[in-house]
């Protein structure tokens, strides 16, 4: 209401219900991501709790014993973790040096035409579905390893085949992240180094590479996280037999760390168990969530680590 003779305030804030509704909808979209995280944590937590509540299982055994044999009631997670780590480390050993060298070449040496050829190829490698990589591991890599090292040394299911193929899978990831880190190094640093009488090799390896180090480290950690979470290659090529071991008793290199025998990884266990008959209230059902929880924390930790590296890397050019 306004008093006769005065002018209504033209700038009064008019409520716009349409705007509010839209804003609310958009906020819900954003908040859905939080619901997802809550859902993951809740479900993983709940089923893991049920798992540990079963009298056959104890948290201590889960975390400390080294035999995973559900049929016999043994639920030590280390064999599965060992499988995951062996494959991931192997993948990093393949992809790390190759990816880094590729990145250095692309960033410091390659002409635009060469880059225009190699970068799309790497993009395609990223787009190949992991199940096709699994097929590749089984039908090409395993026979190759068996013919090189001997069919009695290399088992039909083995860690090495999965490890190498996962390495190929993450190679483009390392290469592109490392290349981003190298390209982000300001050109003024290169110019300063050249002006001192440095050769291209000096500039690339002794100025640019150290400057980009934390960005490269971040890339490595992201790739490792990807390798840890990889399921299909591991399920198809590394086998379904957990590498149960007894520390101190079993020979270290010919058995525990032998890459030529099968070893089930955490993701492999979850996939195989879930694709069989699974009733909702069985201990097997609960066990996959416990393993899933461990997996979730592993990758979460790795991703947090990579973001720490990225933050340090951003500070370096101030």
């Amino acid at each position: 209401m306004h008093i006769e003779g005065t002018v209504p305030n033209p700038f009064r804030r008019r409520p716009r219900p349409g705007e509010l509704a839209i804003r609310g909808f958009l906020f819900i979209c954003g908040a859905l991501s939080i619901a997802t995280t809550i859902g993951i944590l809740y479900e993983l937590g709940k089923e893991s709790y049920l798992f540990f509540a079963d009298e056959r299982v104890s948290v201590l055994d889960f975390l400390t014993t080294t035999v995973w044999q559900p049929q016999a009631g043994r639920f030590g997670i280390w064999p599965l973790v060992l499988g995951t780590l062996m494959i991931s480390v192997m993948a990093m050993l393949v992809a790390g040096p190759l990816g880094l060298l590729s990145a250095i070449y692309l960033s410091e040496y390659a002409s635009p035409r060469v880059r225009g050829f190699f970068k799309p190829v790497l993009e395609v490698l990223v787009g190949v579905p992991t199940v096709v990589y699994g097929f590749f591991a089984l039908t090409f890599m395993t026979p190759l390893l068996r013919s090189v090292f001997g069919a009695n040394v290399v088992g039909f299911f083995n860690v090495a085949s999965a490890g190498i193929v996962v390495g190929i899978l993450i190679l483009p990831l390392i290469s592109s992240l490392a290349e981003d880190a190298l390209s982000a190094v300001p050109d003024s640093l290169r110019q300063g180094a050249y002006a001192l009488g440095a050769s291209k090799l000096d500039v690339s390896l002794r100025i640019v590479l150290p400057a980009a180090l934390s960005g490269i480290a971040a890339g490595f950690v992201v790739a490792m996280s990807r390798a840890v979470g990889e399921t299909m290659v591991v399920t198809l090529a590394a086998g379904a037999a957990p590498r149960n071991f007894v520390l101190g008793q079993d020979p270290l290199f010919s058995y525990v760390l032998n890459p030529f025998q099968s070893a089930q990884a955490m993701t492999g266990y979850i996939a195989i168990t879930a694709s069989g008959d699974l009733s909702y209230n069985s201990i097997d059902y609960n066990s996959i969530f416990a393993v899933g929880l461990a997996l979730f924390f592993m990758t979460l930790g790795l991703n947090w680590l990579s973001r720490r590296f990225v933050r340090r890397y951003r500070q370096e050019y101030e």
Partner: protein
Amino acid sequence: MVNPPFTRHTTEETMNESRTDTAPLVSTAAAEVVDAVMRIEDVDVYYGDFLAVKDVDLQFARHEITALIGPSGCGKSTVMRCLNRMNDLIPSARVEGKVYFNDRNIYDPDVDPVEVRRRVGMVFQRPNPFPKSIYENVAWGARINGFKGKRGEMDDLVERALTQAALWDEVKDKLHESGYSLSGGQQQRLCIARALAPDPEVLLMDEPASALDPIATLRIEELMLTLKEQYTIIIVTHNMQQAGRVSDRTAFFSVDVDERGQRTGKLVEFDFTDKLFTSPSEKETEDYITGRFG
């Protein structure tokens, strides 16, 4: 290896020898360069098909400061980059003509540009220290050039370079801190120390103080005057007063615009600084100095 005898040219003789067209003569009346550590002879610089700067003839006297001035786009930085073959890093760049360092053409096919840069150092417009410690920044250049000294001798070299750059007192207690912990002016002096560490003969400075505040600028200028006793300094600057304060000789560049609108740089006048600023021979020079253009 037979050394060509050390020849002396007067600037005028050089001009007469290389003049092939009827373009206006560069005025070089009394600027006789007796002892030229570097010479530029009939140089054109192209970026692809584009002629960036043409017909440059210059001599740089030993232990003097020579300034290159002119409006933007006149090619002065391009010319300076010819002196240490930094233009080689630009894929489309092409240099025609000769550039002599102590009477040896550095653009000879059998000369490795890396070798040239060992003798001709450079400081850039914006300070660009490496992400390393202050000590390492200075030591790095010496190391890659094959410094043979042991640890203690490297310490001496770092101290020498930092002292020459008038930075030693400020950083001697924090040599192992990052180069980025210094202020802008200090970083630039660090870059100067870094450039001096490999013991070059010539120091190129591309607008070294343009990114700095007036006080830091003054310190850099004072530094230049002390350094010229040991080194030969060539600077590019768009600050005429700076050129006037600091340099012994000055080369003035300008831009020619052809019918298609293409801008090509050219050398207009090269003379002792006081002469150039008080009684320039060319009208273009006079216009620039008095602020009528550029």
